[in-house]
């Protein structure tokens, strides 16, 4: 599946665009959720976040999205530009980087009268979707969906989509406008093998096409080495970070998931 390893990977953040997290800590009602989390996320890179349930993966995403107060710093340097510091959802020193967010699949009832077009238009345009959606908006939505090969989904009710189709619609939405960083919260859960393959191929296409950083959480360790440049093992703190093979064979990985050494990386 992987065709190109990104050239900027090995060097530091000197000239490439990069999201830096330094000493990030999050506390929620007295409980420590994240402790001293630091890592870099480069453009064109796919980084996978793994860890047990309750490890703080969603909290980490929400901190980057500015939806959660934290201590420590998150800075973003665009390619060739000065660094921008993001503090608790407010930005000091420049324009906030665009973060595209694909949330854990929202639950639609099968009977929900929300078509993909309604959903898309509601999120991206001012046109109130309780009126019939005009042609112009329809074409725009179709063009966005074409990025994820989903033009034919336009008139389907959201509740009737399969897991993979729903992820593609949410992905198309996160790409409108094209962000600097794309965050996906467990995009592979509830998606069948074919849908998973399609989705990963699409992400690989996107990062080369738009040179954006892709940061996703997953429980599917089997496919990690096929698509991720880097894997971060998180359980409140970063236990291990590095290339997929290195992390998946580390003692930290086995210990976190209560596996015995010598068994494969399936969970």
């Amino acid at each position, binding site marked *: 599946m992987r065709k190109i390893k990104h050239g900027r990977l090995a060097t530091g953040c000197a000239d490439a665009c990069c999201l830096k997290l330094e000493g990030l800590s999050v506390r929620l009602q007295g409980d420590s959720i994240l402790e001293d989390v630091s890592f870099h996320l480069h453009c064109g890179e796919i980084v996978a976040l793994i860890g047990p349930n309750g490890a703080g993966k969603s909290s980490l995403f929400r901190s980057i999205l500015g*939806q959660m107060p934290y201590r420590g710093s998150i800075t973003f340097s665009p390619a060739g530009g000065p660094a921008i510091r993001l503090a608790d959802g407010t930005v000091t020193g420049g324009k906030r980087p665009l973060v595209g967010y694909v949330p854990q699949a929202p639950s639609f009832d099968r009977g929900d009268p*929300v078509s993909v077009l309604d959903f898309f238009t509601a999120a991206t345009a001012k046109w109130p979707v309780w009126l019939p959606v005009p042609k112009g908006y329809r074409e725009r939505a179709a063009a966005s969906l074409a990025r994820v090969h989903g033009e034919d989904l336009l008139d389907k009710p959201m509740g009737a989509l399969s897991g993979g189709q729903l992820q593609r619609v949410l992905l198309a939405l996160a790409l409108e406008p094209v962000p600097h960083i794309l965050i996906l919260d467990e995009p592979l859960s509830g998606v069948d093998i074919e849908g998973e393959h399609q989705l990963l191929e699409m992400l690989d296409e996107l990062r080369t096409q738009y040179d954006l950083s892709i940061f996703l959480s997953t429980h599917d360790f089997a496919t990690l080495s096929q698509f991720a440049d880097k894997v971060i093992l998180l359980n409140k703190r970063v236990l291990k970070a590095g290339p997929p093979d290195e992390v998946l064979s580390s003692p930290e990985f086995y210990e976190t998931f209560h596996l015995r050494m010598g068994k494969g990386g399936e969970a």
Partner: protein
Amino acid sequence: MELWYSLVSLLPFEWAQPGTMYFMKHALLAVLVISPLFGILSTMVVHSRMSFFSDALGHSAFTGMAIGALCGFNEPSWAAVIFAILFALLFNLVRRRSALASDTVIGVFSSTAVALGIFLSTLGGRSFTKFNNLLIGDILSVEPAKIGLLALILVLVVLLWAGSFNQLMLSAVHPALADSRGIRVFWQETVFSMAIAVVVTLSMTWVGLLVINSLLVLPAASARNVARNMAQYHLISLLGAVVAGVAGLMTSYYIGASAGAAITLYLAVWFLITFLLRKKG
């Protein structure tokens, strides 16, 4: 109003004759204003699973009436509107801050409001019977000034719908996603619940506390059975509400029963029909 009287006189009903039965003409106009109002609000009440909440609001409106009467206002409905708005705001704050499920929070608020209303209205050994008319409602007692007020509210709701329906819908679908796209979810939800509070409180006197929530649930519930997108959903909800509203008023006039109840029964039939026609798959 003159325009309306002359319009109505074109209808082939005995009460529509010029110079007679003004209460019926007022009632018809009131129904034509109230029913679309409920038809529109209903769509989001059902979509964001707030039917239990709107029920609780009806109860709080009654408490507001009791407070207004106790303070000696001539027009207790304004006190009720203010109380209902505060109720909606407080409810949203508590729901956001607490870890409880929202139906639990609603239960807490609803029972408190009802208890407070009964307590205040029976304070000092007074009789509850003067509030009985609030329970059933009487559309035939509506005055032109009140219709004007309701029409103004209808215009405001349509404006709210034009300006922020999209944000409201996304907030209901996925708060975190809505937030990531710059939508202030808390305020969207709060403004919407305040709108319901105002509409429920102001129309309670005419529709009746006991059936008012059915008007907020049944139109959209029926529309959901058959609609495949938002435009169809709104159209069917609105149409159902207006047709049932007019039919209910007529039935009430000719065979003499509460109009609010008759409207609700028509909506129930409408629900049954759409259920039988429901989309498959």
